[in-house]
């Protein structure tokens, strides 16, 4: 597979075309925006926390295929997890795309983002919504 095909795998293109959990969350308990002022990508993330669990997650926004697919798959990945697990996923995902982490630390689906490593300028696209998710957790007062 070429670096390009690895970056734009069919799973990523599918989530870009038909993003999951792509709506606002009326009963959200945590919310944050992720903006990249350099490129104009912009997302809103909503979380509904039930005790220590991320009971629901959703997003809206616009940006490139990498950022949108990443947001979409992130909402799927953290739903039903504990806050601590969501934070651990953030760290593992960040390390995967930034080039130092092992893919095994992540659920299989999220490993498709390993292709971002070959395009360092796109790391910020892949992590934009993840940073917003972390900020939403921080702001909600959830344990670090």
């Amino acid at each position, binding site marked *: 597979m070429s*670096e390009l095909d690895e970056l*734009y795998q069919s799973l990523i293109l599918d989530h870009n*075309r038909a993003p999951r959990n792509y709506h606002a969350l009326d009963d959200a308990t945590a919310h944050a925006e992720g903006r990249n002022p350099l*490129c*104009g*990508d912009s997302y809103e993330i909503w979380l509904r926390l039930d005790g220590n669990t991320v009971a629901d997650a959703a997003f809206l926004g616009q*940006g*490139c*295929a990498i950022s949108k697919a990443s947001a979409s798959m992130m909402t799927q990945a953290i739903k039903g997890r504990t806050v601590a697990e969501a934070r651990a996923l953030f760290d593992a995902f960040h390390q995967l795309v930034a080039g130092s982490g092992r893919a095994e630390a992540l659920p299989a689906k999220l490993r498709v983002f390993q292709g971002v490593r070959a395009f360092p300028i796109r790391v910020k696209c892949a992590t934009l919504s993840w940073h917003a998710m972390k900020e939403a957790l921080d702001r909600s007062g959830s344990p670090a």
Partner: protein
Amino acid sequence: MAATLAVRSGVPWDVARVRADFPILERRIRERPLVYLDNAATAQKPAAVIEAIARYYRSGNANVHRGVHALSQEATLEYERVRELAARFLGAGSAGEIVFTAGTTAALNLVAQSYGGQILRPGDEILVTEMEHHSNLVPWHLVAERSGARIKAVPVTESGGLELDVLERLLTSGNVRIVAVTHASNVIGAINPINAIAAMAHAAGAVIVVDGAQSAPHLRVDVAAMDCDFFACSSHKLYGPTGIGLLYGKRALLEAMPPWQGGGGMIREVQLERSSYAPPPERFEAGTPPIAEVVGLGAALDYLLQWDWDALVAYEQDLAAAAVRKLARIPGLRILGEGADRVSVLSVVLDGIHAHDAGTVLDTEGIAVRAGHHCAQPLMRRFGVPATLRVSLGAYNTHDEIDALVGGLRRVREVLG
């Protein structure tokens, strides 16, 4: 206006010869020849510029204006020679109307802070346009906040021109002091009729500040003929080094303006409690200037002044027209402000494909374009797009490279669907 641009020259532009002057064009990116279509961001440098900078540091380095020794005198002579060259290049009446700045952004900030800061009062108005680069908006926002002046904007038409009747109407308020307008859009390439806008501004008692960053590399600039009060441009888009730019200002305006930054080199006399200032342009050049960059700019201007600009303009216009024609045939592709008279800069959007993804695919083909909002968020909003893919062509680009771009965009569709 297109007719006046398509000046036919006797001798056609020799693009192969120009390409040979730019060492970087031999580079390969991901095993393909570099196709550099990002000239509006920064242009590549001819060997003459690269060598002039190296030669200066190797055998000519000294500070200017203050030394009695041979090297300092040489550096000073060269520094002031470049000011003369810049005046010639821009059509200024004298070198005393040319201020060296860090770039277009610094030049526009200088005018906003010094000229704007001095004259603006609460209720005064500054006119900008919807197609300005952030660097011709934010400096005005800053001075407006401090002075109580208000900003009003001239809209852009669907075809990429300015609503000149709105401009005319805004000028009738009697409160407009400054009209800040770009000569050519950094996003869609549209050329604005500066002569006409300057006449309208002057009739209303306002000065006109022209952002020439994108026009100076493509058009024969004549600040005197345009009758603009201020004109700003950057060396690095003119095939020269980064870190240096030019501000042209009418002599009488510069003389009445207070200093922008204080320091060495801009003073007449300094006491402990107060100082008096040197005349322009030195008044606006505090501290050790970027001397090597000025030397490099001098080499670039020497190079540009040898060019047959009629041939260059005809060539770039032909290249841009071919790009528009060939790109417009790609299904699902839209050219913003397609009908505009333009310098060789244009922006496209692809149905269902974000500019960044397209830019990444093109990069793997060795094609360098820019994807994003191009520091022109109001214009993005005007056209209802989050980002565009910008193609900007320079003196060394070829028709083959346009074809490579068209092929690259086909690959974009294959990869991203």
